[in-house]
């Protein structure tokens, strides 16, 4: 992936600065926190992900789940109060990644910085990784891609039919010291990207101070993505 020309160089200095990753340790392990208190369920990050990575119709690397039983409906919790929270979900870039373990051909693998990558030129399309992933974030290219426009909008090359794809944490942007597109585009700043290995960094501090949690901690995948629980409950 990634033989396209990045337009990041053409950004204004202010835009560049807005998307810069910032401080990190010597051996960064990239991670993200998603603040459920800030998320308003607008799907901006999910939509920019589709455009950034040129996802065909029917596929989503990043999606916004509603907590409760119905989409974008408040749920009743704690007594009679109605509340509404969202759970933006994409690849968790697990440290102990089941998908990496099961792939027969090592087409999904770890980079040194902890990112779980996908080699679409090697993948044989057995879909075992989709079975193994507890988060349901992997997409298979079932057939020829259908796109809403004839233009390839993405900043990365399209993936071939018959292979699996998923969130890369915008690895092509990281190479230019820019945060993933879901992070800079979030209108409420609900996403923070950074180095989990830097104990004083923003990500680690937020996880500590706000009692951040990982999804499905009980399955032992050690995700790089953490969530911050909502503090203020705003009963409707």
């Amino acid at each position, binding site marked *: 992936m990634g033989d396209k020309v990045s337009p990041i160089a053409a950004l204004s200095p202010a835009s560049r600065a807005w998307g810069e990753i910032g401080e990190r340790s010597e051996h960064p392990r990239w991670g993200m926190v998603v603040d459920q208190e800030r998320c308003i369920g607008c799907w901006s990050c999910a939509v920019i992900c589709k455009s950034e990575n040129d996802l065909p119709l*029917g596929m989503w690397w990043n999606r916004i789940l509603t907590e409760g039983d*119905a989409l974008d409906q408040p749920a009743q919790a704690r007594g009679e109060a109605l509340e509404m929270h969202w*759970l933006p979900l994409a690849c968790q870039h697990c440290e102990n990644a089941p998908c990496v373990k099961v792939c027969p051909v090592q087409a999904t693998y770890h980079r040194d910085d902890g990112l779980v990558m996908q080699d679409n030129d*090697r*993948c044989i*399309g*057995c879909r075992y990784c989709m079975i*193994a992933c507890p988060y349901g974030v992997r997409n298979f290219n079932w*057939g020829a891609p259908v796109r809403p426009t004839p233009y390839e909008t993405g900043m990365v090359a399209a993936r071939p039919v018959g292979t699996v794809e998923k969130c890369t944490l915008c690895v092509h942007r990281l190479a230019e010291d820019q945060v993933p597109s879901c992070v800079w585009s979030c209108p409420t700043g609900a996403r923070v990207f950074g180095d989990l290995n830097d104990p004083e960094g923003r990500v680690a501090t937020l996880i500590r101070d706000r009692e951040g949690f990982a999804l499905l901690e009980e399955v032992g995948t050690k995700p790089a993505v953490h969530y911050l629980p909502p503090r203020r409950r705003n009963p409707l």
Partner: protein
Amino acid sequence: MSATTMPAAPAAAPVPGRRALALWIGLLLILIAAGVAAFAYQFATGLVVTGMRNTVMWGNYILFFMFFVGLSAGGLIVASAGRLFGVKAFKPITRLAVLEATIAVVLAATFILPDLGRPERLLNIFLFFNPTSPMIWDITIVIVYMGLSAFYVWLYARADLARRGSWLALGTGTSERTLAREERLKSAMAWVALPAAILLHSITAWIFGLQISRGFWYSSIMAPMFITSALVSGMGLVILLALVLRRLGRLRFEDDLVAMLGGLLGTFIAVEAFLVFAEYLTASYPGAPEGAAVARMLVGPYAPLFWFEVGVGLGLPFVVLAIHRLRRDPRAVAAASGVAILGIFVHRLNLVLNGLSYANIQLPPGLPVGVDQGAGTSFATSYWYVPTAVEWLIVAGILAFGALLFTIAVRVLPMQEPEAH
């Protein structure tokens, strides 16, 4: 039955006419051609032509893969255990069981191909072998086992081939000494074949049973359950094929053997039922999320399939085989074997469907389906998997390929094992 050694095959009794045979082979060839065409179409278009989607990403092909691995392991476990423990009565069906095991594993391996999104990259498996993947070990054992069982088939046929003067005997003689050596080799092979067959199906079970992401499968009983279901279906198929070959005059044995095999099948069914019960009781008792998958299986949309498995697949044949009078009737045993095989197929169907029906994170809108849904939503929390015509054509083609292999094999290879020395 008297003769101590049988010269080649027993004289063909009521062999079906050449016409019937030609018709049968013609039909198989048509089915194979249709399957190949369907596979070519799927290869050109992508797996979008199947009923599978991101929500239920494994379907018919994997199901038939498991089913045939089971048929194969079951057949070889019966044959080699009979040899190891000196069950003389099994002798007449040993060759058949070994042949059945060989053809079944070839079919299982064939079913892997259409399941892959990129079958042309199959060799990557050897180039980029990932030792932590259960799938890689399963494919390895399938290949090893295929070689072993083919060798075993040949070993059993060798003396007869030598007697016929066939070059396929690869230079063995028919003297007492060489025959004795062959017998020792067969016994030695049983020592290898039995663990190989058990490994084969256990590793297949671990493809599923080691996945913590699928609570419904994540269970240590998976491998034992796969072994018993292999025994039920493998035994059942060997009984059916033996009766067919006897009818065609290719094999001779007494009804006593049918009753004995039937009794054994009944025992296997009882053990299978016990394991199924133990598994689902353990899964549902704590009331944890895995229990929800069990509840869905018992009363949800796929419930009729589960109750079919219990009632028709396990209950009915067990009752038939437990009744002494019925067990002595080859037709009743054949019928019981047939429904038991079907029951195991449905058992595996239930495993796959229910294992996939429950996502760990069940929040709306669910998983992206993966293909353009037109004006509809591209998400689904549950998905009703129905195989498409393309999938069935490919399955039918592979099954026909197996039937063709078997038809040729029983015409070329002597099936009757000489009586004990």
